[in-house]
Structure formats: C-alpha cells, structure tokens
C-alpha cells in the first residue's frame, strides 16, 4: 500500500495507523493507547483513502492491498484543528490561548497545587499531557468556539486518586484499561450526547463498587482528569529509574520518579515483564512509605535505659561487643523475607561465622500468601542453600517463646517481631520505628528498596535488580553493608563490594531448585489474573503494617470489609 506517496509493506491485521507509525509517519491521536484495543472515539486520526468516502479514522481502518492513503493536507489539518478546538471548548483552555504564557511558564515552572484544575498551569498532567502535545503539533493558540466550563464537582472522596471530569475528553482509555486489561469494568460511559460522562454504575464511589485502586486508569488518562492525589505535584521529574517493587514477590517493574533527591512517584514500567501494570501498593503506596516520618533516622544504642543516637562506628561496636558476650546457642537471627538476596546472604554468612544455628524467617510462612514477602523465594532459597531444611528454620514466634524462657538471650533481627521484649540483647536492623524498639539494645537504620541497589529472586525464579532511585533517608545504610561490617569485626570474610556479595549469593542460589513459576509467565498478559489483592493477612513491609503508614490504604481495607 501507499502512504503519503511512500510504498509501505504491512502485515495482515494491522491498522492504517500502525502501518504509518511503523513507517515513521506521524498521525496525531488521542484515544489510541498501545496497550488497549482501538476504539475510534476522538476522530483525530482521520485520513483520506482513495476510493473511500469521507475521512476514515486510521486507528480503526484495517490496512488493505493497494490502499492509497493521505495523512496530511490542508483539509485534514483543518479538520483536526476543528476536532481539537471542539474538545477545547469544554476543556479549560485559558493557558493554551493566553498571551503571557511564556513568561508565566518561566516564573511558575511548578504547577499550582489546585483542587480544581482550571488551566495547564494548575494541572498535574502538564509535563506529560497528550492533549497539549497535539495542541502544539497543530499549532493551536486560539479557540473559535465559546468555552463552556462543565462545572462538575471534583470527586475526591475515594482513596488514592482524584477525578476532575471537567478535564475529561471522553477518549475512553480508562474504561478500556479497566475492562479489557484489568478485567474489572468499574467505570463506563454513562448518559448520552452532550451529557456523556465517565462514571461508575449508579454513580457509586469507587470504593463501594469494588475498584482495586490499581491506578491503571490514572496511568492511561491523557489529561489531568485522573490523578494520583498523593504524588502528583512534583512537576518535571529530575530522573526516572527503572527498578522493581519490593512489596511482594511478583516484583513488578516500576519506574521511580525522583525529584529533590526524593521519591515523588512510582509508576508502572512498560518494559518490564509485568506489562506496565501494578497493584495499589506499587502504584500509590511506595513514595509515602519511603518518605514516611516513622522511618528510623539514626543508629542508636541503649545507655541507661535510653536509646541514644550515636554514629555508625559506635553502634556497630556496641553490637559486636554485645554479641560476643553470648554463646552461639544462646543466639538467634531473624531474617525478614523482605530483604534482598545480598542482605540474607550476609546474615547467613555471619551466622555461619559466629556459629549461630537458630535462624528464623519472618513472617513465618504459615501466615502468608504465596507472594507475600518481597523476596520470599530468594531468602528461603538462600537458607536452603545454606543447609537449612524448611523444618529446621524457626519462626519469629519460636524465637520469642524461647527468649521468654531464657533459652535465647541475644537476637539480631531485620524486622519488627512481636513479643521479643524478653531477649536480653536485641539488635534491630529495620526501616521503621516499631514497638520492638522499646526493648532494643541497638538500633540500626536501613535503606528501603528504593534507596539501595540489591537483587531479589521473584516467584518465577528470575533474579531481578533493584536500583538506587532516591537518596537514603537520614543516616540509613544498606542491609548487606551493615552485616558485612559486623562480619568483618568477627574476622569473617571481607566482601569489598555489592558485586562480590551478589556473585556469591547468586552462586548459592544456583544450588537450589528454581521455584515453580506456576506456568504463568508463558501466558501472555498473565498479570491481571495473578494480581495481588488486598486481603488478610494485612500487607506488611518488614513487619510494619502498611495501613499504619498509608492512611488511604487503611480506608481501602476498612471499606472492603
């Protein structure tokens, strides 16, 4: 077939739009999204095809042999302008037609954090707006139709995202992603004609109607109509880092948005094996967790009943000195299933060096679902490689019980453990301030999975890398490095770099059978079927209940009940 005079090849089943895009010919679109079935709603991609009447939309017209397509001429340009101007007659357009916009953008580079969006300068979507892109492409700086503000109330009563349908251009992307990709169908077009709106059936809240709050709709929305309430006002990002989520062992691909050295948003990674989808935890909770004021700021050591902030050297000195006072059989190590392969490997190395045999995994596998524990397969695999059969591993409850009976006196734990107060010498290496701290002899603050490099082995047996995205919180350090320093003090092997530890951990993991991937990865688009759902037990990270950290998650859980 021929597009704009160019001979192009195509495959059976391709649309004219796809053929053009493959041939490097740009046709402006709005309702098309690469993950979604085409729909033909916006009429922006209209083209001319010889022998066909009118202007067929390129996105829904199948390519045929000997077709002759024109994608751009004066007539098409004016039709497209008309289409966009018509959209802008109901979409706040003042910032698009304003004469002062250059100066304004120079002095007000960061969006104003408005509740109701009445212009691009107040819009969280400005930096990534598809509508603005099309406006720019068509060179629109005036709108001939009279503007009519819909003035519908912004919907902010649901957790996690705001919905300002005054900005909606009715492209239907949100409807399609919810139904076709997530299999939910929470939202739909309601009413007709001029009154057409996106809404839930019967106008219920998303919470009432069973929305998963996966945020897929927010991510495909080309405008600022749908936006993540907690993480939308950062404006242009300083950097984006492709990494993986550490909140369950699916380890979905995430793009961490960083600004001011801080994590300001997490969005799904389209290049990852999870096909650009996330659950509510990965999409909406990570930033708030990482920046949360309940994070432990400083290393601390107990002196005269008080936990006193000290420097790292003193804290590690106190840990080593303390541990040396006990017989190996009086000691237990508790390894969180949320720590990286490197961290778990170093704990096991230290245990071997010191002669500690009581190893517990937290949480104990009894009270977790298959994917709970950000690195459940990696941590248990490493234990297995170190010679522990599942039966030989203890549970944190066992450790607490034995501490209560005086059988265990010293405990080194990488997460909060209930009822551990009876341990004489308790070392807590953790992310959040927890109840266990009140009996801790030493507290070692660690970096979260967004702050340090590490690797995890997901439920499908593939080891995935976590990247350094945001700056470490206060004085926190990576798990593996802390344990490495303790091991060094016990005259164990010195690992100079993360790479050395990773190589050693990978070699250990190679000894054990890969976890059963449950045949899932072979299925295309498997993810929605396996999407983690919020249920009991509560979602935790290193023992910390996430609903304590993220209030909207509490609202969601309570709403579910």
């Amino acid at each position, binding site marked *: 077939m021929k597009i704009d005079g160019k001979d192009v090849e195509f495959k059976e089943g391709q649309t004219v739009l796809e053929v053009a895009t493959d041939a490097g010919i740009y046709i402006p679109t709005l309702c098309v999204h690469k993950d979604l079935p085409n729909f033909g709603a916006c009429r922006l991609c209209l083209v001319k095809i010889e022998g066909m009447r009118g202007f067929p939309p390129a996105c829904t017209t199948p390519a045929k042999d000997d077709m002759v397509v024109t994608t751009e001429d004066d007539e098409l340009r004016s039709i497209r302008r008309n289409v966009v101007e018509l959209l802008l007659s109901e979409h706040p357009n003042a910032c698009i037609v*304003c*004469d002062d916009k250059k100066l304004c953008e120079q002095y007000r580079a960061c969006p104003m954090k408005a509740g109701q969006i009445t*212009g691009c300068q107040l819009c969280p979507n400005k930096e990534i707006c598809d509508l603005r892109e099309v406006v720019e492409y068509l060179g629109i700086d005036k709108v001939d139709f009279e*503007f009519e503000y819909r003035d519908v109330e912004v919907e902010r009563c649901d957790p996690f995202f705001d919905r300002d349908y005054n900005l909606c251009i009715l492209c239907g992307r949100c409807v399609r992603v919810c139904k076709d990709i997530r299999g939910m169908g929470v939202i739909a077009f309601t009413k007709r004609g001029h009154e057409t709106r996106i809404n839930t059936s019967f106008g219920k809240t998303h919470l009432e109607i069973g929305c998963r709050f996966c945020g897929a709709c927010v991510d495909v929305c080309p405008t600022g109509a749908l936006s993540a*309430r907690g993480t939308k006002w950062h404006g242009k990002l300083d950097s984006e880092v492709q990494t993986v989520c550490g909140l369950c062992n699916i380890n979905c691909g995430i793009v961490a948005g960083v600004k001011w050295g801080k994590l300001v948003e997490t969005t799904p990674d389209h290049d990852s094996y999870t096909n650009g989808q996330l659950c509510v935890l990965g999409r909406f909770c990570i930033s*708030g967790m990482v920046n949360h004021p309940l994070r432990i700021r400083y290393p601390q050591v107990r002196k005269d009943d008080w936990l006193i902030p000290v420097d790292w050297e003193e804290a590690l000195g106190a840990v080593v000195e303390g541990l040396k006072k006990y017989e190996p059989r009086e000691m237990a190590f508790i390894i969180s299933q949320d720590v990286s392969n490197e961290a778990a490997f170093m704990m096991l190395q230290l245990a071997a060096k010191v002669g500690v045999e009581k190893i517990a995994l937290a949480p104990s596998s009894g009270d977790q679902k298959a994917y709970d524990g950000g690195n459940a397969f990696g941590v248990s695999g490493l234990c297995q490689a170190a010679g522990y059969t599942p039966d030989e591993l203890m549970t944190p409850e066992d450790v607490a019980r034995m501490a209560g009976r005086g059988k265990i006196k010293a405990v080194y734990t990488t997460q909060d453990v209930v009822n551990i107060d009876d341990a004489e010498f308790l070392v807590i290496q953790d992310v959040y301030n927890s109840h266990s701290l009140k009996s801790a002899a030493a507290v070692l603050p660690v970096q979260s999975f967004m702050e340090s490099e590490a690797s995890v082995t997901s439920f499908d047996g593939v080891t995935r890398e976590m990247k350094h995205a945001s700056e470490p919180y206060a004085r926190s350090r990576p798990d593996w490095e802390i344990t490495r320093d303790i091991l060094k003090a016990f005259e164990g092997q010195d690992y100079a770099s993360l790479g050395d530890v990773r190589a050693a951990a990978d070699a250990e993991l190679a000894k054990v059978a890969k976890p059963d991937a449950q045949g899932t990865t072979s299925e295309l688009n498997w993810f929605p079927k396996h999407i983690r759902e919020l249920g009991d037990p509560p979602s935790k990270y290193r023992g910390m209940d996430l609903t304590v*950290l993220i209030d909207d998650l509490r609202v969601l859980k309570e709403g579910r009940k």
Partner: protein
Amino acid sequence: MTDEPVCQDTSQAFRIVKMKAAAPNIYEMVIEAPIIARKVEPGQFVILIPDETGERVPFTISDWDTDNGTITIFFQETGVSTMKMACMKEGDVLVSVVGPLGKPAEIEKYGTVFLGGGCYGIGGIFPIARALKEAGNKVIISIEARSKYLLYNLENLGSVADELIMSTSDGSTEHKGKIHNIIQMLLDRGEKIDRAHFMGCNFMLMISSEATRPQKIPTRVALNALMVDGTGMCGCCRCTVEGKTKYACVDGPEFDGHQVDWDELFARGAHYLGDESIAYQFYGQRSCKMDMDD
C-alpha cells in the same frame, strides 16, 4: 497600627460561620473572631492554623463585621493546608487565628487610584478599595482571571468602584489579557492614574508593577511571602525592597512594587516546593501517631 498587643485569645473558638466556593478553587470563609473584627484595618491579614497538625498560613482579611464579630477571608486552594481548609464545613472550628497582623494599607486622598486583583486578591482588594473610595478617590478596579467563570466578588467591588474592568486570558470577558494590558489601555485613553495597588500572586504583582513603572505611578503591592510567626521574629518572610532587608509580616505586607527584588522573592518562595509536594503523600495520615507505650 494600634499599639495593643496582637491577640491570640485561646478561650475563643474560631468557628466557621460561612463556607462557600466563590469560584473554582476560591473559597469564601467567614470566621467568628470578634476581637480581630474590632481592630482590623484595610490591608491587614491573619495567620491561621486549620487543624492540630496544620501549618501556619497567612490570609488577607477581605471584609469584617464588627456587630457580628466575624471576619471574611477568600482563599485559593494551593497546597495541603488550603486543601484541608477547602474540606472544612460551616460549624467547624479552626485551631488558631492570629491577627490582625501587618501594617494597614496607606489610605489618603490621592486622586485616581487603580486597584488590580487576581486570584485571592479579587476578594482581598475590596477593603482597600472601599477605604480609598470613602477617602474621596476615584477608584478604578480591574480584576483578572484565566476565564470569566473564575471571577467573583463582583457585587462588592462594583459597589465601591467608579469603574470595574474585567480581563481574562481567554478573552471570555470584554478585555482579553491581564491587568498590565488594562493599565496600558487606561493610559492610552488618557486616564491619569495617581496611585496603584495590586493584590494577587507574585507573578501578577511583578508584571503589573512593570506596567506602572514607565509613568512612575506610585505602586503598592501586597507581597506573598511564606510566614511562620508573623511578628518579625522567625525571618521566614524576609524579602529585599529598595536594597534593604524587610520582613513582609511586620514591615508589609505592602511594599513599593518598583523596588522589590522579585528574583529573590521567587527563589525564596520555591525553597520548600519539594516539602510542599511531598506533604501530599501524608495527607490523610494526620492520625498516624505511634504510641510507643501501648
């Protein structure tokens, strides 16, 4: 300004008696605060704290009623604190309201006075306009917004203005453009302006002041600075005017618009953008307190 100490009467409940959306993002809030209502003069402001964990935010007093003991503020939702305020209802009580703060606007008979208001300033400029009118001036008020549906307070302003001119970025009112375009229009038609007052965002204050500079029209701007105490102690609201260090809370809020160091003001205003943005991650987490003893 009166010499009496600024009052923060903790026995008093700062009840919201009226809460209304004046325009999208702009809210009118009428608060019970009889002592402030008795003492306030045009151009002064209050600092209020919406809830127990809220920060201190300054708002221009836009009207008051001595008989009923109330003050009115117009505020724009533009951060977590104002988002919390936007969610409050009539009958709710604010944690604290301190005021009146700042120097009152200078009111004299100047001749023709031009007042420009944008965003919250469309509400805030009213008491100054009223006082100037009462002092015998010819008062021309111009207000600006992105579009017609964002303008408000028209009745009040109309009642004290000899001329009320509405300008919008999208041209949905008679005049397309901003206040600086209106000033130019007035000068072009031969209007002699003896004094100008601007209230709105700093960007609007800056470009409007530039419009009065060539004619050397004495220009007063109500600066927007971040504030904490509002009594000249913390230094948070520091700005530079005529090359001298000033504190917007006690030396202002009004300054000579031709003498303000705008770049410094913008830089200082942007200082907390990161924290302000991250604060949204914890909105709704107000109740998140971990009691280590239970």
